[in-house]
Structures are given as structure tokens and as C-alpha cells.
């Protein structure tokens, strides 16, 4: 699969799973996209560790250090899987995977070269000595426990936005 095809498939499948999908071809366009995705007056948690996160963090006037107090988490994630439209969050590098769980809105930035074709490719890459936590996230939190009717945002985020950069 070519890089462009992989990204297209990933974005298509993520959208099917009810994630908001965005793509920036130049990292300098990231702030503009974030500006559209994240409301500016909400408390945002952003680790500010990677280059992309550093670029993002500067945008948010109300930045909090405690993800439990945030309404939005903006972070760069480990990778993604095109087959299922999944983003992959890992605990390596001191990351709090639950930062993408507690706030109502999760904004995940994924580098396009970190998109795996399939689940097999992902697990082949992590099967040796996995970090404490690998979480595959496909769309927002959901349930169908009442009459098998879909409801969004049970315990995890009710909104997931993915930005491929």
C-alpha cells in the first residue's frame, strides 16, 4: 500500500468509527486545524513533549497540568492502524494513556509515517517487550446496552478527533 493509500484508508475507517478526521500536509498548518477542532476557552491538557505537541501547546490559553481536570486532551499518539481506523496510545516515555480517557474530548495527532497497514503489522512491532499499557482506540466511547441503541460517550471521550500530520 502506498503512503497516500494507507492514509486515505486510515482516515476513511476512522470516520466510519465516528472519529472526526483531519489531515495537514505541512506541520505549520497544525495550529489552524487545532483552532478549528478545539474550542479556545476550554481547559486543555497537552503534554507538550514532542515537537508537534510543543507546537500545539502554545495555542491553548487555558492549559491544565492535570488531565482529570481537563475537558480536552491534545496529544501526539504512538501510531495508527489503517485496517481499522484505530489510533494507538502507549505508556512508553512516561505517557499517561488515561489522559485520552478522562476528558470529554480527545484530540490525537498521529504522524503519517506511524500508520501501520494492519493489526498484524502493529502487533509485530510491539510483541517483543510491550510497554505497561497499549490501548487501541477506535472512535469515541460508546455503548448499546440499552435496547442495543447506540449511545456515545459513556465513560470515555464523547468526541475523538484525529489529525494526521
Amino acid at each position, binding site marked *: 500500500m502506498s503512503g497516500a493509500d494507507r492514509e486515505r484508508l486510515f482516515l476513511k475507517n476512522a470516520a466510519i468509527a465516528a472519529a472526526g478526521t483531519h489531515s495537514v500536509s505541512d506541520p505549520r498548518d497544525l495550529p489552524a486545524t487545532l483552532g478549528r477542532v478545539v474550542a479556545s476557552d476550554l481547559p486543555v491538557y497537552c503534554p507538550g513533549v514532542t515537537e508537534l505537541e510543543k507546537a500545539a501547546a502554545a495555542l491553548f490559553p487555558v492549559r491544565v497540568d492535570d488531565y482529570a481536570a481537563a475537558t480536552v486532551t491534545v496529544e501526539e499518539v504512538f501510531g495508527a492502524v489503517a485496517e481499522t481506523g484505530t489510533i494507538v496510545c502507549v505508556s512508553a516515555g512516561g505517557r499517561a494513556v*488515561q489522559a485520552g480517557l478522562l476528558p470529554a474530548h480527545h484530540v490525537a495527532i498521529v504522524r503519517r509515517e506511524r500508520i501501520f497497514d494492519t493489526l498484524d503489522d502493529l502487533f509485530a512491532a510491539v*510483541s517483543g517487550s510491550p510497554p505497561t*499499557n497499549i490501548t487501541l482506540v477506535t472512535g469515541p466511547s460508546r455503548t448499546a*446496552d440499552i435496547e442495543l441503541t447506540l*449511545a456515545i*460517550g459513556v465513560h470515555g471521550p464523547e468526541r475523538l478527533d484525529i489529525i494526521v500530520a
Partner: protein
Amino acid sequence: MSHEQTSLAFRENTVRALEDTALRAAMKQAADTFGTKRADAFAPVADLEALRDRASAIREDVLANLPMYVDRFVASATRAGATIHRAKDASAAREIIAKILSERGAKRIVKGKSMVSEEVDLNSHLEAAGMEVVETDLGEYIIQMEGESPSHIIVPAIHKNRRQVGRLFADRLGVPYTEDPQALTKIARKALREKFLSADAGVSGANFAVADTGSLVLVTNEGNGRMVTSVPPLHVAILSIEKMLPSLTDLPAFLRLLPRSATGQTMTSYVSVITGPRKAGDATGAKELHIVLLDNGRTEILAGESRDILKCIRCGACMNVCPVYRTVGGHAYGWTYPGPMGIVLTTLLTGMEKSHPLVDASTLCGACVEVCPVRVPLTDLILGLRQRKVRDRFSNPRERLGMEAFGKAAASPGLFVLGQRLAGAFWPVVRALGGKDVAGRMPAPAKTPFRRRLP
């Protein structure tokens, strides 16, 4: 609360269920929805049969080498920093978990959905020890509030409609009545968020345990599984020994099959792979991780003729298509596991003497076999248990006499024709003896049977 097994009263349970119009409507709607969603989810999978073969082969390998994989898992998980406990039976599992929790002074326990914890009746035991146990899966939360047990292994409150849930929440939580599932979900989110943040411990199950890495895999949608395993300082996982997979590279096959089979999703919202507790430099994970490996009769099942049931990955597809399950719901089966897989597992785990009517709770229509993602030969297993029921003398004595007569007649044309003639001649008597349920639903034998009409 504790739930006594009522499998021996299966027929009475079904009669009651059949009279419950709300239940029947809920079950019918659920079964139809499941059927469509599952079919749609699998439609684009080009090599489904090969995928099922692969998953089935992995599960067979696991069963063929189960002690080795369990040992490997124990070693890897220990290396990753988890503490492993082996529980021989339900009471050992309850004791172990209660001890872990009470030694650490845990008072408020948040729970993720776990059928194994239902199997060992964990909640009532912890509650008796003075702990507050909060089920956090929405369906489990609903039935815990109602004092019921799950009626489906994936969708525990499938037997309830939105109006019943709306009234329950209004009564118990003091919120204004609503029957909008989205609004009810928000109410539960708010109530349970406080519980997560203040919990002393999380108790979860696991869908798979990975032998090579010592990882636990949880396949979920709501996010409560992630909360339970990562927010409280202490995480206790309980799982049965057969949930092993050799390696993480075996996982994709199951991630392609399980959500599609269970809920008709291509992928669930979340898949968590947890390897040990929080380590130095980590900002994720419980500080302490205890894994309780439950046997509870599995080693014995493994050595017997019904071992293939241990291939089961608990997707629930077999019950969704089962004509019996979809008509009477899960509670009629009288124990933790309902539907075709439940017939087999309940009989094996609780004993024929406590469950023998269940083995007759199948028309052998084979719909379950057709959908099972890992090719568990459910109807063959049910037939095998029926043979055991007969061998162990749990079958009805009148039926036994009838079948013995049948065996003789089927092997002897003279007797067979005699039987046919007698049935014809005395049909009103047969009908009266057979009752309205059986002979009353059959036509009278033909005056001249086919064999005497042949030119």
C-alpha cells in the same frame, strides 16, 4: 446479591419467560438487530473461513498445551511485575480476592464486566466483607441496581427495555424520568465518574491472556474497562485459565472476529493490552496488579470429551442466533452462562445433577455452529452431554423405556411394523397417554403406511 442456580427448573423458567411480553419483545428486537449487524460486519471480510480456521487452530493449540501456556504466562506476568494467584475453585478465588482487597484496606471497588466474576459470585462475597462493589459497565450497572444477574454475556441487560431502565434510574438515582438511551447513558456517566475517581481498587476480567508477554487483553467499548484498570491504585484481574493466547501476534485474528461476532462492530472502541503494573518512569497503570487464574473445573473439562468448549472466546454469537435463547432470554438457563455455549459450560462446571434439563434446551438446529468464530462444535458437544445424561441416569425413566423399545423396534422390521400397526390402531389411546403436548400435535398414523402402498 447472590444468585442461586435454577437450571433444574429450566422448563418452568421458560414458561414464565414466555408469559413476559416485555421480555419477549426485547429479546426479539435484540436478536433481529444482532443478526443484521453481525452479517453486515462480516460481509466485507473476504477470507472469513480462513480467518476462522486460523483462530480455531490457535485455540486448539492453546488447549493442547494449556499447562505449558499457563506456566509461560505466569512467568512472563511475574517478570512484568504482576502478582499471580492460582484459584482451584470459586471459593478459593473469592477468598484470594477478598484477602488482597481487605489487606490493603480497600472499601470502594469499581468493577469492569467479567463473566468469570459472575461465575464465582464475587460481588456478594465482597459485599458481605463490608466493601462497596460498583459495577461500571452500563448494562451491569443497570442489573446490579435491579438486583438481577446478566441475561447475556455481552449485553447483560438485554432483557430490559428503555422504559424499564428510565423508571429504575428515576427511582434509584433521583433523576427526572427519561427513556432516551443517550440521556440515560449521560446519567450513568456522571454517577460512575465519581466512583472511579474515589475507588480504592478496580476489579476486571480479561478477554485474553498472552503467554509470551504476560499481558492481559481487554476488549471494550464504554471505557469503564480502561478506568477500572488504570485509575485506581490497585487492579485485580480475574480470568479463567483457558483464556491464553500464545503471543501478541496471535491477537489480530481474534480482534477481527470477536467484535464482529459479538456486537457487529468492525472494531470495539477500545482494546487494552496491559503488561504488569505501573513501573518506574510510567505515568500509566495501577501501582499494584494481581492476576487471579481460575481453574474451577477447567482442567477436568480439558481431559474430557467436551474439551472443545474451552475454545470459546465468549462473543455471544451462539446465543444471539439460538432459537431457544432468543425466545426465552438468558435468565431461564438459571446460571451464569446462557445459550448454546452456556448449556455446555453450565453442565460441565456445575455438574449434571444441577443442570441436566439444560442439555435438552436445543433443537440442534445448528445456527450456533454456523456463526461460532472459533468453530466450537456446539451441537456435537450438546449431543455428547445428552449421552452423558443418559449414561448417568438423569434421563426421564419413561423416556428411557420408550427409547429402549425404539432401539429394539428399529433393529427388527417385524417389531417396527407391529409398533406402527399398534400406534395406528390405538392412536386415541397413544394420544391420551402422550398428552396434548406431543401426540396431540401429530396427525394420526395413515390407515395404510407407505410400505404397504408400494406397487
